């Protein structure tokens, strides 16, 4: 039940998993604790997965965690392989979910102690890594991608300064004190702008025809799954850790996983950004693995791993439980109940997810004249639903128009959304780190070098900016060539 509801919620842009879970808290108030929890876990798993549907089919991520899925998922759909993309997304979500669960059961307390060790500077490095993705996203023009990303960061910073409490870029308008909600930006840039763009092309043909694939092609073959297994394992570990970090959730896990795939997969099925299966595998595995990750600090310490687990903790309170470090000690049965219901949720996710591919894929074949007004409606309703605030809708429309002109000018919208989401996170964590060393930059650098976590993250960040380290193979080739040159000279 919960899974189905979750998939639907996840697939509709704007209806966020956090909101659905929050609604369920009041709906299930009168229920027993366990069925209520099972329902919420189902919605959680389904919702995170469901976001990929709309990202793949109509290039509007249903949830922030699905942004990275759209990078390659939508190109796949345009090639008429939406079925394959959704099939892969489903199976990988399942794999990620199961691995996340295994981590929770096997190493929960260990991972949560590890997560506590992350200092603000480490969050900053992590987020900076996510931002560096911009350099690899702007497929055609790096300056344009950077301009878009910088614009995004600027928009993300609008609102009350978290350190001083003063308004930033608010022009004295009380309206801007709360900032611009990133979901509104997301829906506007991805959703509404696509509507405008398509409207501009109506009558000019060039509408991609999608063939509805056979069921056999939806379910990826074993060899297919096995082929991506190493990548799935790596991105799952990434997802679990990022999910377990109290300051980051599935969206950052998915972005980092996509980045990781792009950097480590030498021979993707197709170039990234043009429909690489790996580009769907990595983020989908990671964002569902992040659920298991987020549940770890929630169950072992009573600290939420992301926004949804924060709501779940509230729900536990309402049901008279006391989520905290002692929850697992005092109520081990509850821990196992959560583990089992989450396992079941994953099984149902796999079953329902694969069953419902056909009707979803048909959606792409719906006449644009019908589909586009529908997307517009969903965009408006979804945006209003974020916090029942009409100004969010105006923002969404504004960003829809901006996105349209960006698309006309060949500016990518992806980096802008990255900027909006990651910019403020980078800002606040950098400032926290700097404040805690009294603004002393050498001390800040020393802390990075002297702390193992920070050092590893810093090295990873730096290597991200080195275009391509000479691979072992080409090095060997060069070495082989050297002696030959030497011989020539000698002869």
């Amino acid at each position: 039940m919960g899974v189905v509801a979750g998939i639907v919620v996840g697939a509709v842009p704007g209806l966020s998993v956090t909101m659905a879970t929050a609604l369920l808290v009041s709906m299930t108030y009168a229920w027993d604790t366990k069925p209520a929890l099972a329902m919420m876990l189902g919605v959680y798993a389904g919702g995170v997965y469901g976001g990929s549907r709309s990202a793949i089919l109509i290039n509007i991520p249903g949830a922030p965690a699905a942004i990275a899925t759209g990078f390659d998922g939508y190109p796949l759909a345009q090639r008429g392989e939406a079925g394959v993309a959704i099939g892969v997304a489903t199976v990988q979500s399942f794999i990620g979910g199961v691995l996340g669960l295994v981590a929770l059961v096997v190493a929960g307390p260990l991972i949560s102690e590890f997560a506590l060790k992350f200092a603000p500077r480490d969050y900053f490095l992590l987020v900076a890594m996510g931002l560096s993705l911009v350099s690899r996203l702007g497929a055609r023009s790096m300056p344009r991608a950077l301009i878009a990303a910088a614009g995004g960061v600027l928009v993300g910073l609008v609102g009350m300064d978290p350190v001083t409490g003063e308004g930033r870029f608010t022009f004295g308008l009380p309206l801007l004190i709360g900032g611009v909600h990133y979901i509104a930006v997301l829906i506007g840039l991805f959703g509404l702008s696509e509507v405008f763009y398509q409207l501009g092309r109506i009558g000019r043909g060039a509408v991609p025809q999608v063939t509805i694939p056979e069921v056999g092609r939806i379910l990826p073959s074993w060899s297919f799954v096995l082929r991506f297994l190493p990548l799935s394992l790596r991105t799952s570990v990434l997802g679990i850790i990022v999910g377990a970090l109290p300051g980051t959730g599935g969206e950052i896990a998915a972005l980092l996983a996509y980045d990781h795939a792009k950097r480590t997969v030498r021979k993707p099925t197709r170039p990234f950004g043009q429909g690489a299966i790996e580009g769907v595998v990595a983020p989908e595995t990671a964002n569902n693995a992040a659920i298991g990750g987020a549940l770890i600090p929630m169950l072992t310490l009573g600290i939420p791993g992301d926004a949804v687990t924060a709501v779940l903790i509230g729900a536990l309170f309402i049901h008279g439980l006391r989520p905290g470090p002692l929850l697992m000690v005092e109520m081990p049965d509850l821990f196992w109940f959560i583990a089992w219901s989450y396992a079941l949720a994953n099984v149902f996710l796999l079953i329902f997810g694969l069953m419902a591919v056909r009707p979803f894929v048909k959606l792409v074949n719906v006449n644009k004249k019908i589909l586009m007004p529908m997307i517009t409606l969903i965009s408006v309703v979804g945006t209003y639903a974020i916090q029942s605030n009409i100004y969010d809708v105006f923002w969404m429309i504004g960003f829809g128009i901006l996105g349209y002109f960006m698309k006309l000018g060949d500016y990518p919208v992806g980096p802008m959304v990255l900027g909006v989401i990651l910019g403020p996170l980078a800002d606040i964590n950098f400032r926290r780190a700097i404040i805690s060393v009294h603004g002393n930059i050498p001390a800040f650098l020393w802390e990075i070098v002297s702390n193992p976590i920070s050092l590893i993250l810093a090295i990873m960040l730096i290597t991200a900016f080195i275009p391509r380290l000479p691979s072992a193979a080409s090095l060997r080739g060069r070495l082989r060539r050297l002696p030959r040159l030497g011989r020539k000279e000698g002869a």
Partner: protein
Amino acid sequence: MHATTASRLLRVFLVPALVITLAWGVAIGPSGAQVYPERSITGIIQWGAGGATDRVSRRVAPLAERGLGQRIVLSNMTGATGAVAMQYVFDQRADGYTLLLAAENPALYGVLDISPRTFDEFEPINLFARSIPVVVVRRDAKWRYLTELIQEAKSHPGQIKAGSTGPGGLPFVVGAMMTAVSGVRFNSIPFDGEGPGMTALLGGHVDFMAVGLAAAAEHIRAERLRVIAVVDLAPVDIVPATPALGQMMPEYRAYLPWGPFYGAWVKKGTPAPAVRRLVDAFRPAVASEDFTEFIGLMGSTPLNLSGEEAVRFVKQWQSVTAWLLHDAKATQKSPEQFGIPRPARR
């Protein structure tokens, strides 16, 4: 024959039907068209789902429904420190069908220049509870009591790292109290809320933090965090051995008791009978064992104040907090502009 069958039929079906109709009529009769509440009431929660205000509101509303005989339909409306929700309720008709479920924040909208709305434009139905601030440190920290921490802060000004939630938050106000009374300063590092701040405390990224007892209760029970002061006049049940700040250092009494509160309001101008009906429905709900137990679990202390008492409580809180913030240079406008008097010395 036929007649008797007919009359029996009549008796079997018609009579009960008539009785039911009559009974129904009697039941709804007195609460007819003119009597409040004749339809469901909307409750606007100023903060997001899962937060303290949300949790308290969702716990108390079903209990108050019993006394009202109508549903209270709750929804969260966040934004601008709760000002969006307050404005919304202010824009509705003052008919008692829209409740504002809020925390203490609106008392500072003026001095922080957040919104023109004030609590003066609303009528308190009930102040449910007040949370108790405590100062916590890691289990292995060297300070046993806040007095020791203050001593060290005096010899190393600005060195000790304090977890904060930004200007105006609970940790900030408690810090401002320490600056005002003991003249100490800390290096305060802002986090997104008490939860994230405590996570940083657990991870060793800050040295101490003032938080609501609610947020820290489970970490205290698990002995991961230790309370070095209860920022109140008397100790609390959860940590009976820790002395209250008012006992340790009597000079703090002028500012105590202090703590964020939660309650329900309606727009001023709501007909008196409706206000009375709401007050009468919330009072037993807040007093119920179900709710007080929940409040205790949250580490808060029940208030159950309405009418003049509630207004006085809010005024006192506003006076203490606004002037503390003003003296710490954290306000946009002076409390004087809004006619907020300085707290009286006790």
